[in-house]
């Protein structure tokens, strides 16, 4: 199809008018008009003509209506392979569509038939889906401001995608079948739907599959629980059966009777055995009594015989003890006498020793007293000397403390004096001095030494001027020469601050000297020397004191007091050292010289030896005496015991005259008791020999009792167990537990079958999906070859070595690769995007042309972002395509598009 002319009547701004574009060329036709001319109105009008049904009142149609309303009419003259036709539609009022063959102006189609004619002419029939009203030509229109290739609404996008697919399919021949086309889409969608029913996107079971899995899991748990309950039930049934059998056996009357009979027989046997055992016990008691009687008879006889023997032995013992007592008494008397003698000797030795020791002590005391007295005297001398030194030290120290003429003070005075001297020299050098000598007066008339007498004196400022003394004169001073007149002296005043400083230093010096009560430097030095000597005296006294009383005077005095006390004590009599009372009354010993002490000490030693010997002798005698007394006491006690034993033996033996009778009686009683014992023993042996085994009888009775009791207990326990089992069985059986188990088993089987079925189905679907995706992916790699082939030379005009990447789903450009750089479409500039959009349409147009479907490309101000250089290149691309492709360009950029060349159609607007 090629456009020849366009005509709008009563469309938007052309209300009540008819706007015509005529003379549209085969190649590029540029409608370059200023803004608000109505270029977009033309674009929308012819778009509605070809893509909106004549009966439509949709927005694209309504938007064409002018404010004044009325029918909208759009017409186009076109050329097709079958001839030239006029396509005209009237919208919104008295709606119609017509196709008029221009050669004879015959109406070839009207209204709906006209719509079908248009659709077929646009190639929409090639789109198998039939979706959307746009045919392939819809791809080739670029509306003002719409740069992308994608339509705005989902419906439009779907339709455009179908169209592109058709286009690619028709051009490449195999594209659709290579990728499976819509059938592939449908199959894959169905696979996805079916898989979606079974699996989540992450591959986890869902829906019925998951429900079957969950059910199987739940049923497995339920079945296991029920199986366990059934097992419990079976075990309970078995246990109850066993209990019931045992109960029946226990309750069997015959068995019960047998147990009772056995118990009764055992009881009887036990009673017989117990009765016999009583008899045996009685016989045993009689035997024991007989044994006791026989033993008693024997003991009586033996006692009698023993008493006789004991009496004899007691008499002998009493006699022996009496002899021993007498001998012991004699021994005591002998030893007592010897002990008295030894004691007297010892007492004499002790007296002598005490006397010797007393004399020795006196001698020692006298020697100690003498030594102490000497020591006391020496200490007294030391104390006197020390006290003298202390006095010296304190006196000197008081002087030192009272005198402030320290070495530092003296140094300060010396320095101050030097400064006075120095300053005085300076002042003297700057002053004038006068020395007056009175003629004829030696030493002055008034004896004051100032040379001035009562007359003829010289006064200086009213004061008598002393003779022979330098007087400092400064400034103007008047010398009054009494009897002569006045002499005015003009002396220069000292310059600088020396005089003032001299006065200050002198005052300071005088103050320093006054601190220690001196007036001159010489006195100061003497005072400092005296202080230094006092300090030396203090140190010397301290040193002497350290030697005389290292620990102080008080310690020295305490030591002397102690020595005095010792001397006093040594001279005192030693009354405490002697026990002898006569010593206190003994006269005062005369002085014993030190050289007699050794002799006294030897005497004491000798007497001590004698006293020790006497003490040993006395001790031995005392021990012998004590031993003898103990022996005598022992002998007396033995005699007493013997006498007691004899008395008891005589009592037991009885009167001596009854001995024979009593012996005969005892022998007879012994014989009678022996006979009674023999009889009792025989009777006991007989009973024991015939006795039944009581222990056996008791054991048998106990066993039979236990059997009966055990049977009763077992019956009771089994009865309880039976009741419990019955309750449990009734609970489980009442709930139809086996039936439920079997039912759940069946449900579990069905659930597992479902799980297996779903799993197999999911596996097959996954397998199918994988196979389809793999094959489609392989096909897609060759999917866009034809488009790329057409795009390549066009793209090279703008971008050398560039290629476009296509999205496999939308079949639209998704990115631009330039060299090694690949950019997404959304990342490109507006200019580049609009260029790609146009180039892609050019490529699609060439694909249409290949299959003989020539569609015009319509661009409504499509190059608004491109710079001048790119626009020129785009013109080149458009021109290249326009060699066999009609391109209609609307633009307001009149100057820019002058370089595009092409046909400039005639545009007219007339009243309708």
């Amino acid at each position, binding site marked *: 199809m090629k456009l020849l002319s366009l005509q709008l009547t009563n469309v938007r701004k052309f209300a009540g008018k008819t706007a015509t574009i005529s003379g549209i060329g085969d190649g590029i036709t540029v409608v370059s008009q200023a803004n608000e001319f109505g270029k977009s109105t033309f674009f929308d009008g012819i778009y509605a003509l070809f893509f909106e049904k004549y009966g439509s009142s949709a927005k694209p149609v309504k938007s064409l209506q002018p404010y004044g309303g009325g029918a909208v009419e759009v017409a186009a003259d076109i050329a097709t392979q079958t001839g030239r036709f006029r396509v005209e539609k009237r919208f919104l009022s008295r709606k119609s569509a017509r196709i008029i063959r221009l050669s004879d102006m015959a109406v070839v189609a009207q209204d709906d038939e006209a719509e079908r004619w248009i659709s077929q002419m646009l190639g929409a029939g090639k789109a198998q889906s039939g979706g959307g009203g746009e045919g392939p030509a819809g791809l080739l229109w670029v509306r003002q401001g719409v740069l992308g290739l994608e339509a705005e609404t989902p419906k439009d996008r779907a339709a455009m995608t179908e169209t592109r697919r058709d286009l690619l399919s028709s051009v490449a021949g*195999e594209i*659709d*079948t*290579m*990728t*499976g*086309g819509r*059938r*592939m889409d*449908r*199959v894959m969608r*169905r*696979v996805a739907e*079916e898989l979606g029913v079974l699996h989540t996107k992450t591959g986890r079971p869902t829906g019925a599959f998951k429900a079957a899995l969950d059910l199987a899991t739940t049923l497995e748990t339920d079945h296991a629980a029920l199986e366990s309950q059934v097992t419990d*039930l*079976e075990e309970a*049934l078995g246990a*109850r*059966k066993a209990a*019931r059998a045992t109960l029946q056996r226990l309750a069997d009357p015959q068995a019960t009777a047998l147990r009772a009979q056995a118990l009764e027989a055992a009881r009887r046997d036990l009673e017989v055995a117990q009765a016999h055992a009583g008899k045996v016990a009685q016989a045993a008691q009689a035997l024991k009594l007989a044994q006791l009687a026989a033993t008693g008879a024997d003991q009586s006889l033996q006692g009698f015989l023993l008493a006789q023997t004991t009496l004899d032995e007691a008499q002998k013992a009493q006699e022996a003890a009496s002899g021993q007592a007498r001998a012991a008494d004699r021994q005591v008397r002998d030893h007592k006498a010897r002990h008295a003698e030894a004691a007297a000797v010892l007492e004499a030795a002790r007296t002598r020793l005490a006397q010797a020791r007393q004399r020795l002590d006196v001698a020692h005391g006298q020697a100690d007293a003498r030594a102490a007295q000497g020591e006391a005297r020496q200490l007294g001398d030391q104390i006197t000397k020390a006290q003298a030194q202390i006095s010296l030290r304190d006196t000197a120290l008081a002087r030192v403390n009272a005198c402030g003429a320290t070495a530092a003070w003296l140094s300060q005075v010396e320095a101050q004096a030097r400064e006075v001297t120095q300053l005085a020299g300076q002042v003297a050098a700057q002053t004038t001095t006068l020395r007056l000598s009175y003629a004829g007066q030696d030493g002055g008339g008034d004896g004051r030494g100032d040379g001035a007498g009562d007359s003829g004196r010289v006064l200086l400022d009213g004061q008598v001027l002393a003779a022979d003394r330098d007087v400092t004169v400064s400034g103007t001073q008047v010398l009054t020469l009494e009897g002569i007149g006045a002499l005015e002296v003009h002396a220069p005043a000292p310059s600088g601050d020396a005089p003032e400083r001299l006065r200050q230093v002198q005052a300071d010096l005088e103050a320093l000297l006054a601190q220690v009560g001196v007036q001159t430097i010489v006195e100061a030095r003497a005072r400092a020397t005296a202080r230094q000597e006092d300090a030396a005296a203090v140190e010397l006294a301290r040193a002497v004191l350290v030697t005389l009383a290292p620990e102080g005077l008080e310690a020295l005095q305490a030591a002397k007091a102690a020595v005095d006390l010792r001397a006093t004590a040594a001279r005192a009599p030693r009354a405490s050292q002697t026990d002898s009372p006569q010593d206190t009354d003994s006269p005062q010993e005369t002085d014993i010289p030190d050289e007699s002490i050794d002799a006294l000490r030897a005497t004491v030693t000798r007497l001590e030896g004698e006293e020790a010997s006497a003490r040993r002798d006395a001790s031995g005698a005392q021990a012998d005496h004590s031993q003898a007394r103990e022996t005598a006491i022992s002998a007396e006690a033995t005699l007493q015991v013997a006498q007691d034993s004899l008395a008891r033996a005589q009592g037991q033996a009885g009167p001596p005259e009854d001995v024979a009778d009593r012996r005969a009686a005892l022998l007879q009683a012994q014989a009678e008791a022996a006979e009674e014992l023999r009889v009792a023993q025989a009777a006991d042996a007989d009973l024991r020999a015939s006795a039944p085994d009581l222990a056996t009888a008791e054991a048998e009775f106990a066993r039979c009792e236990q059997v009966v009791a055990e049977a009763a207990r077992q019956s009771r326990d089994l009865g309880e167990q039976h009741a419990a089992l019955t309750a449990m*069985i*009734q609970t*489980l*059986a*009442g*709930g*139809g*537990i*086996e*039936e*439920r188990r*079997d*039912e*759940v*088993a*069946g*449900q*579990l*089987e*069905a659930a597992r*079958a479902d799980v297996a079925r779903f799993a*197999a*189905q999911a*596996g*097959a*679907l996954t*397998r*199918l999906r994988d*196979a*389809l995706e*793999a*094959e*489609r992916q*392989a*096909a897609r790699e060759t999917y866009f070859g034809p488009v790329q082939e057409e795009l390549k030379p066009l793209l090279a005009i703008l971008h050398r070595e560039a290629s476009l990447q296509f999205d496999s789903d939308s079949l639209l450009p998704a990115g631009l690769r330039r060299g090694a750089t690949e950019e997404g479409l959304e990342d490109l500039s507006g200019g580049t995007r609009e260029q790609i959009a146009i180039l892609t349409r050019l490529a699609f147009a060439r694909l249409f042309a290949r299959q003989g479907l020539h569609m015009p490309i319509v661009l409504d101000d499509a190059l608004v972002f491109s710079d001048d250089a790119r626009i020129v290149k785009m013109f080149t691309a458009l021109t290249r395509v326009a060699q066999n492709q009609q391109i209609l360009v609307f633009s307001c950029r009149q100057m820019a598009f002058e370089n595009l060349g092409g046909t400039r159609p005639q545009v007219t607007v007339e009243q309708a």
Partner: protein
Amino acid sequence: MPQAFTFVHSSDLHLGKPFGRFPEDVRVRLRQARADTLATLAEVARAHGAGHILLAGDTFDQTTPAPKVIRQALNQMRAQKDVIWVVMPGNHDHANATELWAQIARDKPDNVIVADAPSPIALAQDVVVLPAPPFERHPGRDLTDWFDGADTGTAIRIGLAHGSVTDFDSSEEGGSSVIAPDRAARAGLAYLALGDWHGQLEVGARSAYSGAPESDGFKHSHAPVALVVTVESNAALPRITPVCTSKINWLRCDFDVTGHADALAALAALMPPLAQRAQVLMDLRLSGRIRAPQRVALEQAVAQIAPDFLWHRADFSALGLLPDTADLDVLDSHGALRAAAQTLADAAQDPAHSQEACAEAEAALSLLFSFAMET
């Protein structure tokens, strides 16, 4: 000379069987059908002049069925008061199921005789039944041994046993019960009424399994029956008449598509009449190999008729695809869809793949055809 004695022989009612693997609505129908068999048997007895119904074991499905199952069964027997029921334990409801039999003994009506001990029971003046009730699930010995020495005088001897015969190792549970196949002859029985086998089967002239009056599985192909038996003497052969008793038909169809030019027509021919299908449990098992489009058509046809049945199951797992390039061309002559189909077809035939992988690929191919052929 005893008069002819006619009775109904049945067994394996399995009252209370839960049928858990079926949906709830089917379960209800199946359980109700089994409960209804007692009335059906009574009707059969009346229709054939029989006064006794001998149940040769497994009247109940468990040793401890729910009390209401027992009560409702006894109530049903009580309602059929003109019939005497001889109920013998089977291996499912063996005689040691004390709870069950104690309740039956306590609640049973007068027209119910419990044959739970191996001792003769007089059914009529000259007719004695010799029961051999199992006392456990798998007795492991021939419980009918005592028949040989049982003294019943001149009375007609009817044996009643539950288990499999020694040369007929076909117990429903691969059982270990062993009944001598010539027991009837050896014990001088006029007839040996057997239970345990759920399909009707005669074992010699005097011994027969009645089978269950209602099926509980697809194992047996014949319609369930009860046997109306007439015995005239111990010497005379019994007259055995099967009478259909079932209300629900368990139908297993094994359909091998191989050799059928029109598989759909063959399938349609296999199906029961439309009016009967609501009472049919259909277990369709397809096998052989078929071309993919035909398989899709077959699947669609089966899916279409499935709702006709009370329950329906179709197993296509054994139905293989017949590789055919022309079929793949139906999908597409070339391109991705065709390539995917070819890949799956190749994988399904690849001997290097496991059987499971081949089956999965085949199923995937089948799905591909199914989806591609959807309109």
